[in-house]
């Protein structure tokens, strides 16, 4: 199976580095972006299989990014990864394939990534 590419969109530099390291260790090819606009540019050029998207970010937030992502690529899988559970009430967030509330334990995030990529492979 070809190596899957994941784009991590996260404004906090430390968290971004942490996710990148952890997911690289899992065997994924990892790209990063610090805000929504950077993410859209990266998606255009690199077509990742999955995007992990923070919501509260400067320049362009995750919800705006999400809508526009779908225009580039309807099939792309998106996981919203935020510290706030309350954005789940936003209809816009329902366009994502999964919603994960940030935690120091990355196992939920990792298993969600795995499930979504397996789904798309089947």
């Amino acid at each position, binding site marked *: 199976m070809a190596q899957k590419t994941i784009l991590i969109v996260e404004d906090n530099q430390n968290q971004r580095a942490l996710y990148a390291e952890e997911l690289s260790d899992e065997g994924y090819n990892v790209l990063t972006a610090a805000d929504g606009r950077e993410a859209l540019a990266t998606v255009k050029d690199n077509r990742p299989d999955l995007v992990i998207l923070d919501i509260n970010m400067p320049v362009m937030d995750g919800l*705006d990014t999400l*809508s*526009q992502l*779908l*225009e580039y690529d*309807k*099939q792309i899988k998106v996981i919203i990864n935020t510290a706030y559970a*309350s954005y789940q009430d*936003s*209809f*816009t967030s*329902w*366009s994502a394939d999964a919603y994960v509330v940030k935690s120091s334990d990355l196992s939920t995030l990792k298993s969600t990534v795995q499930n979504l990529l397996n789904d798309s492979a089947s």
Partner: protein
Amino acid sequence: MRKATKVASSRRSTKRSTNGQTASETTPTEAAVKNASSTLSNGTEPPASPVDRYARPNAVHYAPTISRGVFARGQESELQQTMVMVLAGGQGERLYPLTKDRAKPAVPFGAHYRIIDFALSNCINSGMRRILVLTQYKSFSLQRHIQATWSLFNAVLGEYIDVIPPQQRNVKRWYQGTADAIFQNIYMLEQERPRFVVILGGDHIYKMDYAKMLDFHLRHDADLTISCTTVSREEAKRLGVAGTDETGRITRFVEKPKDPPTIPGSPNESYASMGVYIFSTDILVRRVIEDVKQDTEHDFGKNIIPRMVRDKDRVFAYPFVDENKTDNHHNGEVYWRDIGTMASYYDVNMDLVSGSPAFNLYDDEWPIHRRSQPGPPAKTLCHGTDRLAIVHDSLLATGAIVSGSSVVRSILGPRCFIHSWADVEDSILFDDVEVGRHCRIRRAIIDKHVKIPAGTVIGHDLEADRQRFTVTPEGVVVIPKGMVLK
């Protein structure tokens, strides 16, 4: 949330210190600064201010209105939790040239109405006053009409009618289909958070109480309710058809089927969708998002509904209850007309001029609201015995003048002027049409601001008419808005 608490606590500290109760040795300002950044000396959080108990910005989801106050007092009404979305974005190509400069719902109808006035009157008469009209092509005329006609709503009471062109909020494209139009307006649903959404087209002539349908939707605990009218199996072949079980639950939904499913216990009839839907909002949002991610036509009839039926959502057929009260119905048939073609447009208009119209404009319990324009009453004039005004079986709008001429089985729009010895029959004239002396006009639709020169003959020689006008297959001559004739 965390942020709000922080602001509140600094406000509390400021207030207390300016009262001088805790800050005897420092100036009020110094105390405020000190208290804002610290907890009390014993290390605990300062007590909450009384205001925290009753003013909670994070509990307000939308701008408060008086009607919501009523709701909060326990007089719960599902009507107040319902939003209407009128889909008025189609191109209306089959009504060309009447849609040359306007969207189909804005096409004039019945002397002084526009097609959309019937659907909007249904909303008002059903008690639904939160309405979004989604437009797309040539929306100016429609927007202007709605502004001039339908500004009846009171924002303080939480009522509105808003015309919304594609905003390209979440995507950079025009509406790709009916379901995409809803998807692109998810933000509007998010702002309002209605429990139910009524979706309907702006191009049908009928009278319907959507509140009765909402009751049905609630009674059946439905995800989606589709208003259906009973048609013969033959007619069903060109419509969206619902196959149901005995309870009315839809088990199959097909567009233009060769072999239409029938109504249980009635083998020669089928349920045809009228394009009037009530959705529970959450399901609607999930289904349009799901659909927009697929390569479909993004159409309710073709994609969303069949998918919901397949996935075992609770989709029900609501048997249309006709509010058109008249003795002129034949065999108990209901009145619902799709103004899809020039022929149906002409026939539905012509029904109104007959002595016993099937559609009742005279029922004060179901008024059809329309734009009221200033202007003098309609007038007829005779100038001696050879210049009589002969007017019968016709509708005349405000300011129309028939001067020494003959108007039979026709509709004259506002300020039409028919000059002496002219002869107009079986025709529909829009606003400000002037017909010169000795003209002979039959079976014509003449759009606004056309001046017909004296002596012109229209509708009597279709071959000649085809040289310069659109002539429908049924032989109706259509003259577009503002056309200049010699």
